[in-house]
């Protein structure tokens, strides 16, 4: 599969919180047609890396270009689905309003949402198969349904790159399969980067894999080097190649 143009580049990116490094010397190129999985333990800097790409966090050193622009400007081409957030379940807002929220950066003062906004929102809800819930209050949905709505909210920005932070957290198994099928469809329209601590689930679907635990191990392929995986997870890991390549299991004691 052709990988297309470079859309995001990180060069020698470091990020420290109070002198403690969270990201160390990250070099990463994301291409137009990538479906990249980034795995790593909790606290390994996965969410931080996504926030750096979105310009929500400033790197201590290093350069980042997002669609050839600084992240704060390039992020208008990036859709983001944050880690299953602890938002207020009682927040008075409907599914429809949550999805339209994705258009808020494109609006003028004193205007209502335009017909285009409404069309994009209804297309996005159709894509994630949640249109029938448009008038439901967001907190009344299940975890997997909420995740779909948040994906729809990212889609209405018409992104060329979709960043997914632990999209399978709080989603039950059957719904996970459906979500992956959704990502399979979406990847024809945009690059996707998914971060997760769950190696086995991710590895089946993505084309490329990277490991992140402060340092990023990435070779632009799906191959993971066992030593690097161990360095990432700091425990022995067995790679078992069956029909499904690179299902990765932790060694039992």
């Amino acid at each position, binding site marked *: 599969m052709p990988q297309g143009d470079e859309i995001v580049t990180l060069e020698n990116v470091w990020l420290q919180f109070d002198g403690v490094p969270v990201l160390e010397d990250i070099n990463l190129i994301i291409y137009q047609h990538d479906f990249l999985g980034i795995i790593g333990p909790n606290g390994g800097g996965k969410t931080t890396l996504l926030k750096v790409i*979105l*310009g*929500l966090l400033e790197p201590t050193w290093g350069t980042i270009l997002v669609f050839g622009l600084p992240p704060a400007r390039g*992020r*208008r081409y*990036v859709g*983001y689905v*944050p880690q299953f*957030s602890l*938002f*207020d379940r*009682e*927040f*008075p*807002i*409907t599914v429809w*309003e*949550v999805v*339209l*929220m*994705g258009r*808020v*950066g494109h*609006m003028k*003062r*004193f205007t209502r*949402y335009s017909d285009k906004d409404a069309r994009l929102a209804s297309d996005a809800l159709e894509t994630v198969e949640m249109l029938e819930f448009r008038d439901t*209050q967001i907190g009344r949905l299940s975890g997997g349904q909420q995740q779909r709505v948040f994906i729809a909210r990212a889609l209405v*920005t018409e992104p060329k790159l979709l960043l997914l932070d632990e999209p399978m957290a709080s989603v039950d198994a059957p719904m996970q399969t459906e979500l992956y099928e959704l990502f399979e469809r979406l990847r024809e329209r945009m690059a996707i980067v998914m971060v997760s601590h769950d190696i086995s689930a991710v590895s089946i679907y993505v084309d490329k894999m990277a490991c992140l635990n402060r340092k990023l191990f990435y070779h632009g392929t799906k191959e993971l080097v066992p030593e690097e995986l161990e360095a990432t997870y700091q425990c022995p890991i067995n790679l078992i190649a069956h029909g499904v390549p690179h299902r990765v299991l932790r060694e039992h004691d």
Partner: protein
Amino acid sequence: MIELFQYDFMRNALLAALLASIACGIIGVYVVVKRIVFISGGIAHAAFGGIGVGYYLGIEPLLGVVPFSIAAALSMGMVGRRTRIPEDTAIGILWAMGMALGVIFIGLTPGYAPDLFGYLFGSLLAVPTADLFLMLSLDGAIILIVLAYYHDFQAISFDEEYATALGLPSERLYLLLLCLIALTVVLLIRVVGVILVIALLTIPAALSKRFTRRLSGMMLMSSALCALFTTGGLWLSYAFDLPSGATIVLFSGSVFLLTSLVHRAR
């Protein structure tokens, strides 16, 4: 009941309660859903400094509160966000400093401060007609700004970081929202006084949150509840000869607790 309205002071009291309810219902919704009750309480108390400044300068104290409470709101917001001081610590410090400034300015003012008690705990029965015009224009400003920024405020209330990722200037919007809270405090001072303002910024909104699934609906309902609480409390205070501000707060608080109990019992 009807004969009450023959008195100017009673008519002004009712008009003041209704004008305050408009702003209180709209802005209280943000205070509750964005979970910024503490900073709102801080702004309300720090506004007392403005009353002191008003006395000292010999101007109408409420006019002193407008710039002072906005300054307090902006400094709490910025110190909390941009320095390494934890936000709640910063709020606590500025809250007390604002009140202390008020006491100092009143101390510096020759003579004694008339109506001081009213600014602290409300004085619905002594609202001058000039104040009604001030309240009306503040309501107008608040409604206009909320109409212009409704979707932006909705986004930062739901998830501020995500709003930033969408390209919204979240911090500036947050500071603007704090300024609106400061203006609402000015409107509520006559009704319940700086010390009790936070009750009306939370109770009506928290009650209506249970029954609505849209912010706009929550605003309408909470304005209506606020009007009900203030006029109902005013009537109770008149009937039992009690201080109006405290009666309004206890009346609304009791309704809130009772409905919470009924809600749980179901």
